[in-house]
């Protein structure tokens, strides 16, 4: 009987290869992976934001911050299950569509996938639910311990991010062996740590960590915008107006670091293998980065427009003035830093002298007697800032050639010889730094305006809510675009230079095709998050209004 069973088992045919309907296998994996990353980014980023808010509320004895933190965690708890759901779906789709590679990767990181990551996930679940459900009971003298629980939640969340980034980064930059040793041979005997601590692991960790904070801030802004729109009383509108401001401030604050984190990640990828750089910047992905330039420019424009609208509702803002030398610094920043970074490209330190001068000299000159009267009003300063945002965006987005690949470049599609500097890194860095610098200047002015004037919460221009929604939507779309780029830098490999992808879908999709799917993913994510916000917060808000 046993022999018969053995013979029968040996004759069971293998299931046919999976071919995902409509999307194909590669796009199916893309969609579930990106959705999982978006939900994951939220449940990691939102608690950072929430714990900081809770601590501020405790320190300043301001219940608004505590309410803000609790509402954000409420939404987080609902979306936690979506993260797990999309994670499970991701795994099944991956195993079904790319079974050989999936098994290979799981085996190489078995301890991570089968032990460490699940344990961390369980730990985070326990801490998150404890943190949320003990909110009302751990008040007063126990508040400090509740905040400590929140800090622990964030530590576990960060460790979880770092752990899962290991295999992810490995697929882009598998461990580089010592000189003279074949990568294939090295991988066979490499330890788990060798594989985890690869070239792009830490840069990816930093970029995602900062990106998650940005994301959390902008989603808090989204929550505030929805709730503001649905508010029936002035008190509710006042609270959600304030919440939108706080969310935007955190989001933009973290956003300022993001270009440099992204630059670091790209630098490490190029350092690992020089041929990745032209692929990203001059070949198949060059227009993807052009689109990224447009998105970053729009996000900075929108976040500064929100400051403008916020300023307009402060009584006494007309009296706020800023040193005219700061305005001059903003006007001259792209040109001066472009030259400085051309003469002394990073990591050469001499460019920091120029940078320090641009940052410090205007403030110093503004205090000199005789020069003190050279000032501009807050509104004029912001308008100058907006002019420079447009100029910086134009520099940021100027490509060397309006072609999908350098090989197709002709004279009528390329920059003229004398202007090629506009397409090089010093100009791009100068443009990025201008965007960051004037956003900081605008926030300094805003703080000055709040201290000297009277802010009227709840009376902000209604258009500001659309700005908050725009910021969240655009941030999500940009994350989708960058996730696509990171995956595509593997080219036709599952693991770059190590495990080739022999399937017919191993090519770079067009930017247009990618844009459709990124938009679809963004909308799906938006629908789920919107549903979560309305289901968790709207009933609570209505109850509060009724009382």
């Amino acid at each position, binding site marked *: 009987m046993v022999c018969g069973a053995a013979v029968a088992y040996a004759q069971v045919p293998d299931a046919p290869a999976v071919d995902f309907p409509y999307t194909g296998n590669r796009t199916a994996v893309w969609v579930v992976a990106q959705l999982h990353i978006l939900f994951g980014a939220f449940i990691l980023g939102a608690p950072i934001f929430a714990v900081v808010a809770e601590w501020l509320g405790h320190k300043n004895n301001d219940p608004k911050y505590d309410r803000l933190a609790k509402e954000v965690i409420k939404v987080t708890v609902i979306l936690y299950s979506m993260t797990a759901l999309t994670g499970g779906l991701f795994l099944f789709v991956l195993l079904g569509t790319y079974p*050989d590679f999936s098994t290979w990767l799981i085996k190489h990181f078995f301890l991570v996938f089968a032990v460490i990551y699940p344990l961390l996930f369980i730990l985070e679940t326990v801490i998150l639910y404890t943190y949320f459900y003990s909110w009302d009971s751990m008040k007063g003298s126990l508040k400090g311990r509740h905040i400590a629980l929140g800090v622990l939640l964030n530590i576990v969340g960060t460790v979880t991010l770092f752990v899962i980034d290991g295999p992810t980064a490995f697929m882009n930059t598998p461990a580089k062996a010592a*000189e003279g040793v*074949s*990568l*294939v041979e090295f991988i066979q005997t490499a330890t788990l740590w060798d594989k985890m601590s690869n070239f792009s692991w830490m840069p990816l960790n930093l970029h995602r960590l900062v990106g998650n904070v940005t994301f959390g801030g902008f989603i808090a802004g989204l929550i505030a915008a929805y709730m503001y*729109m649905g508010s029936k009383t002035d008190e509710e509108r006042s609270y959600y107006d304030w919440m939108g401001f706080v969310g935007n401030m955190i989001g933009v604050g973290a956003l300022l670091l993001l270009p440099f984190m992204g630059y670091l990640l790209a630098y490490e990828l190029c350092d690992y*293998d*020089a*041929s990745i750089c*032209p*692929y990203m910047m*001059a070949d*198949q992905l060059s*227009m993807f980065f052009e*689109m990224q330039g*447009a*998105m970053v420019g729009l996000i900075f424009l929108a976040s500064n*427009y929100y400051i403008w609208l916020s300023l*307009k509702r402060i009584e006494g803002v007309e009296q706020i003035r800023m040193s005219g030398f700061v305005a001059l610094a903003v006007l001259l920043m792209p040109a001066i830093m472009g030259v400085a970074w051309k003469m002394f490209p990073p990591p050469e330190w001499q460019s920091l002298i120029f940078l320090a001068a641009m940052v410090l000299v205007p403030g110093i000159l503004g205090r000199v007697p005789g020069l003190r009267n050279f000032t501009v009003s807050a509104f004029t300063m912001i*308008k100058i800032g*907006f*002019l420079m*945002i*447009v100029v910086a*965006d*134009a520099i940021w987005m*100027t490509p060397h050639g*309006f072609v*999908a*690949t350098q090989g197709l470049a002709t*004279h*009528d*599609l390329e*920059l*003229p010889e*004398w*202007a090629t500097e506009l397409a090089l890194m010093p100009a791009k860095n100068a443009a990025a730094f201008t965007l960051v610098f004037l956003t900081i200047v605008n926030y300094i002015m805003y703080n000055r305006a709040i201290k000297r004037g009277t802010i009227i919460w709840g009376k902000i221009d*209604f*258009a500001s809510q*659309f700005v908050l929604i*725009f910021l969240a*939507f655009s941030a999500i779309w940009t994350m989708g675009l960058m996730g696509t780029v990171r995956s595509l830098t593997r080219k*036709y490999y599952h693991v770059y*230079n*190590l495990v*080739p992808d*022999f399937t*017919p879908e191993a*090519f*770079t*999709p*067009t*930017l*247009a095709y990618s*844009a*459709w799917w*990124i*938009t679809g993913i963004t*909308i799906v994510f*938006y629908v789920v998050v919107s549903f979560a916000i309305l289901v968790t917060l709207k009933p609570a808000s209505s109850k509060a209004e009724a009382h």
Partner: protein
Amino acid sequence: MANQSFTKSVLKKTTIGIIIGVIVVVGAQQTHFPPVFQVMFFIYAMLGALVFILLDAPAMKRLEGIKAVAALLVFYVLLSGLYIAGASILPQYDPGVEAGKIEKVLKMRKARSQQGKAEELIARAKALNERAKTITQQLSSLGAGAQVEAVATSSGGGAASGDIVALGKEQWELQECYNCHKLFGSGGKKRGPKMDNIGNLMTPEQLREKILFPKTWKAEGFDKQYKKGKMPDKYRDLMFDEEIDALVAFLATLRDTSVDTPKPIKMK
């Protein structure tokens, strides 16, 4: 009254935007920017005008209930359309070009992989099956003295078989050496030296050594790139011996003395 004032403001700023746009376009034309860049600069001038219009726009009236929901939905549709349209009007890379290249790059690896071997066995089995069917048909329709026709077998594809230099040039394209090395006046970004005269400066054995172990040779004047290890050391894993031989054979034919290929320095 407020609306009239805003309308005037819009007209004024749009006019200023157009004037600035025209000035910028004329300036770009005079300084030899191609038309596509002139269009980009004009769009930026109009974007500037739009920004300044928004800055002075009157406050938006609060929307509630169904109006707010409808406005939100329209906003999402507009944003989605904007991003898809923006991405679509940019130049698109043709995946067909890349797909052909990938097939050539991975062909040998696939053939030698488990999957490749299995696919080859299946293909051979199918071919044998067809051959058997053909013979059976011919036999059944045979009269006395007829002969079974030979069926030609395909010799397999690939570029110019037997022409190793052409295969080597193909490898130059497939491995994307042009990304770092200029040759025949195109490619390269000063990451690596120009290669037009390398055949006069290095023997085939030395060329092979450099490809497999980049740190063994340094180009004069490329100290920074050498220190940073810019030349990838992946080719001994990625390329088969036949592919390297072909590439070396191609490089050995590059003997243009009019191009300043830097002197190679042997490193320890």
